[in-house]
């Protein structure tokens, strides 16, 4: 069964007709041709499909496209405005925060979301004081990024990259 939807992806409006079963991830990759978000597990366990959905990081494999008609989506591909890398992307390069790169677009989108959540003062499981403003400590970043798996095990450089992008001097 088909439905007509409109998505704004990396600033460009896309009108498409989708089967109601289509996930946001499949709509992005197979219909719009944006292969930046990756299909890892397709069950919400690995984070490779992470995008910014109406501003917040979300798993595109667990979202039905039809349920997000009208949504604004930013993928890692759309973070580099006018060819200039986003500070998170630049930090991943400088910190050597990836090996094969398959999980990286999801890691980068997730990190952008993390930095925004920390700016808004959102606590995490790693926050010692629930009511204090969180800091970008190693433990905070590791906890907040725990939904993004990296089979190459680049975590040792991902955490410093996220902290660097968040302005931590290290």
């Amino acid at each position: 069964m088909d439905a007509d939807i409109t998505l704004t992806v990396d600033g460009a409006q896309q009108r498409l007709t989708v089967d109601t079963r289509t996930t946001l991830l499949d709509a992005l990759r197979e219909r719009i041709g944006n292969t930046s978000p990756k299909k890892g597990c397709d069950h919400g366990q690995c984070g490779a499909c992470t995008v910014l959905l109406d501003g917040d990081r979300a798993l595109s494999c667990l979202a039905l496209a039809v349920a997000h008609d009208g949504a604004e989506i930013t993928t890692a591909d759309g973070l580099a405005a006018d060819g200039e890398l986003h500070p998170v992307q630049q930090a991943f390069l400088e910190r050597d925060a990836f090996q094969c790169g398959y999980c990286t677009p999801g890691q980068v989108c997730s990190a952008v979301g993390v930095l925004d959540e920390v700016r808004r003062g959102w606590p995490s499981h790693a926050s010692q004081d629930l009511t204090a403003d969180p800091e970008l400590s190693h433990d905070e970043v590791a906890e907040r990024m725990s939904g993004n798996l990296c089979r190459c095990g680049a975590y040792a450089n991902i955490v410093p990259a996220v902290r660097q992008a968040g302005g931590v001097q290290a």
Partner: protein
Amino acid sequence: MKPFAFARPADAAEAVATVATEPRAVFLAGGTNLVDHLKLGVARPDLVVDVRRLTSREITDTADGGLRIGAAVTNSELAADRRVRERYPVLAQALLAGATGQLRNLATTGGNPLQRTRCVYFQDVSTPCNKREPGSGCSAVGGYTRYHAILGTSAALPDPTAPETCIATHPSDMAVALAVLDAQVQVLGPAGARTIPFAELHRLPGDDPSRDTVLEHGELITAIDLPPLPAGARSAYRKVRDRASYAFALVSVAAVVADGEVRLALGGVAHKPWRASRAEEALRGGPVADDAVRHAMDVELTTAQPQPGVDGGNGFKIPLVTRTVVATVRDLTQETQA
């Protein structure tokens, strides 16, 4: 994935009427569990009714000093709310102990308590499961039971072939906190609105493991109310899991300590968030030193039935949950004295 029709009604009442008249219709909110079940074939609806934008996304103060949480408030928003962090730390901690940032941004207040068990046999459509296919039997009994129940199971020594057998646990962290907070669930159904005490929302497997809750088909959670805690009350959530982050609870404890009162709810031990009423009764008005709490947990766990399993079984949960309760209550009482 089986084909399904999709509907986005104009309001909650229309959504309720739509689902009520279609036996194979389901509500969709954040989708973090349902969409996975559509892929796995665990859920096979003919009609998916989107309610994500049809209930309130506001958290409001109530006249009695508590909070009303709209069903569409995300788990992230709820955990970050200043009032929740200050007045109901047990709830903020439970939310933050569950899932990941990407999932909490999608998951909703109404949807989280209605997520289904992560029993691997329930999620694997190639194996018998009384919850998924009533009457087909239970594959968990004698199988991998590390994440399964020790309390409230359908029989002391469950028969894997019996239609009522189920040793699944409820996976939500948030629900354990809501159980200890005496939350009230606001529901809209075909017959009108009603309020369900949170402790009565979920059910034990009884003779029908396929039903997780007392909600009738077509009933929609519209809000969850938190009554105020007693003055000076302290609360906390403590979760024990196989990984430091992003794992379901082996056991968890939600506790409230107030003057002369200890409230306890346990996760990872039963088919529903388990309010430890016997332990609470044993502790009422008395001292809350470690020995007393340990004794109260012995009382609570007299009916516990650890399950053998190919992975060594889940008997470890009895000392584990006892120690976790003792440590949680100790932290809260020392905080009060400090």
